């Protein structure tokens, strides 16, 4: 029997996963595993995965064959911070949705970036609260109808990558699940780095959005790709001209000392 090459990173008893048919999380998981494989990790013993509440929080817990901590809504980043400070030898990775990371947990995101805390945060952005039924999120586009904005969203979406890049951190990138190779490359770049790293991954919520706007999951991913613009191509273009486009690419890639290194330098 031929087994999947990345089954070594998964608890076999948890596949097939619980995610909806067509959900982009499957693509994202594969991209993450491909990065691990290319970085020559035979297992995930060196990693601790921390997540909050929401569909994306279920990516590592229970699917990853690794130490995983499934915590409260919005609080994965501080829990991950506690783990990293006590076990700096471990590679601490947070998975979460846009509501979890940028909404209820937004303050922790800001401060983890400012501290250059040595954790990688992967934010899966489907622009709604998917698990609870498709309510408006801090990332929902202006005007979009959701279950709690039946007349359209009066609020502007948060450009999380720009905010995080301004707050601090060593690595900030945004891709859609349609940009598979670029996403793998970003994971390969971000996983071994010190300091705070943030990767946002846009994916359709097939159950709460795609179906409602009449797109199949594949069509929706194509739409996301079509609506994206590479950050390199935005130079000199006014914000309003970029309009409703998703700015994708690597926003920031620097090597400032991470928090653990700063503690060392201060003699602690």
């Amino acid at each position, binding site marked *: 029997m031929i087994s999947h090459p990345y089954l070594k990173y998964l608890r076999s008893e948890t596949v097939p996963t619980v995610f909806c048919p067509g959900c982009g999380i499957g693509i994202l998981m594969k991209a993450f595993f491909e990065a691990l494989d290319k970085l020559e990790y035979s297992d995930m013993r060196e990693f601790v995965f921390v997540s909050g509440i929401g569909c994306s929080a279920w990516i590592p817990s229970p699917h990853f064959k690794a130490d995983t901590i499934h915590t409260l809504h919005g609080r994965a980043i*501080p829990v991950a911070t506690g783990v990293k400070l006590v076990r700096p030898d471990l590679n601490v990775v947070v998975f979460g949705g846009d509501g979890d990371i940028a909404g209820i947990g937004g303050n922790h995101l800001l401060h983890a970036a400012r501290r250059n805390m040595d954790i990688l945060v992967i934010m899966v952005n489907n622009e709604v609260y998917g698990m609870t039924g498709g309510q408006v999120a801090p990332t929902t586009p202006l005007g979009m109808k959701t279950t709690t904005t039946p007349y359209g969203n009066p609020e502007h979406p948060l450009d999380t990558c720009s905010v995080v890049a301004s707050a601090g951190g060593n690595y900030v990138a945004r891709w859609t699940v349609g940009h598979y190779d670029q996403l793998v490359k970003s994971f390969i770049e971000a996983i071994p780095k010190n300091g705070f790293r943030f990767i946002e991954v846009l994916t359709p919520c097939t159950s709460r959005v795609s179906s409602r706007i009449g797109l199949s999951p594949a069509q929706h991913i194509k739409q996301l790709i079509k609506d994206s613009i590479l950050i390199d191509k935005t130079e000199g273009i006014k914000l309003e001209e970029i309009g409703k486009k998703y700015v994708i690419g690597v926003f920031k890639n620097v090597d400032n000392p991470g928090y653990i290194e700063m503690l060392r330098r201060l003699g602690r």
Partner: protein
Amino acid sequence: MIIIRRFWTGNIASAEGALRAGCNFYAGYPITPSSDLMEYMARELPKRGGVFIQGEDEIASINMLIGASIAGAKAMTATSGPGFSLMQEGIGLAVMLEAPLVIVDVMRLGPATGQATKSGQGDLMQSRWGRHGDQVLVVYAPSSVKEAFLLTIKAFNTAESLRTPVVVLLDELIGHLWEVIDVPEDIEVVERVWSSEPGAFFDSEVPENPPPMPKLGVGLNVLYTGSTHDGYGFRKTQDPDAHNKLVRRIHRKIYGNLDRIFIYDYHGEDAPDILFITFGSVSRPTTEAVDILNSDGYRVGILKLMTLWPIDYTVLKSFVDKSQIVIVPEMNLGQLIHDVKMVGGDKVYRFNKIGGGIPIYSSELVGYVKEVYK
């Protein structure tokens, strides 16, 4: 026994107790009247190989403690009413994950911002019941600087031996009280039981003995979740038996060790006509009132509770049954009195004082006894 004499506040004594108990992680957020405890830890902890971090808020701080605890640290925070309120969801998670940690609440006057620099005892019920769901943890309450030291050590030992969060309920009067204390050098410290072998880290055949904690980073593929889980950590969000089993085991873990947890001190006549039941700073003027009344020919005693949760009602009742009337003086509008009423009924009287952090004076209690007991 080697003894060292020290001049400490309750907050310093609590910090020193934590350090002696092996605390090596502190996360907290500034709030009066606990900030000086945090500043002390910020200075001392790094010197002793520990990690200190000031969180962006109390929510971050309590969750950092949880991560630190799971990763192997003896973790602590200190806060006061408003911050304690913000921490409640995190404390509930620590109950569910069975993550040992210690929260010191230096009580001030609430609700809301209230009188931030003034003492009160209004957080008793919050310390017991602040979390949602069927949860239980242990609450200790010191009434002196020495007790702040010893009970913080006990809090760490209880946290480690029972895999549970523990609250130390200080009030501002004790937190900022300076006293000379004799610090014993030989202190019993409970170390965590670790496992590096695969196993059920969330189940125990004997519910009174919690399972060992799994080491991270050794390939155990540990599953921690705040959702209802089976013994191996797998989420069981639909299974009634799994929830019933897990939550009852966590309760039995605490209640099954009640004889070790529940501590108190009695002072006064053997079979008193009048019994005071107190906790925290109020115990001090009450003890003075007991001595005054006994020298005036009354037969009075004071039962000082050092454990506020869980309560051993059998012990409480045995004291209450021996006396004619029971008075519960509190710097709140009546919280401990509910426990005493439950075992003592109509013979239980309240004495409440709030505002300005003004303590209950012994003369007030003496006057009150002479009024109600004729």
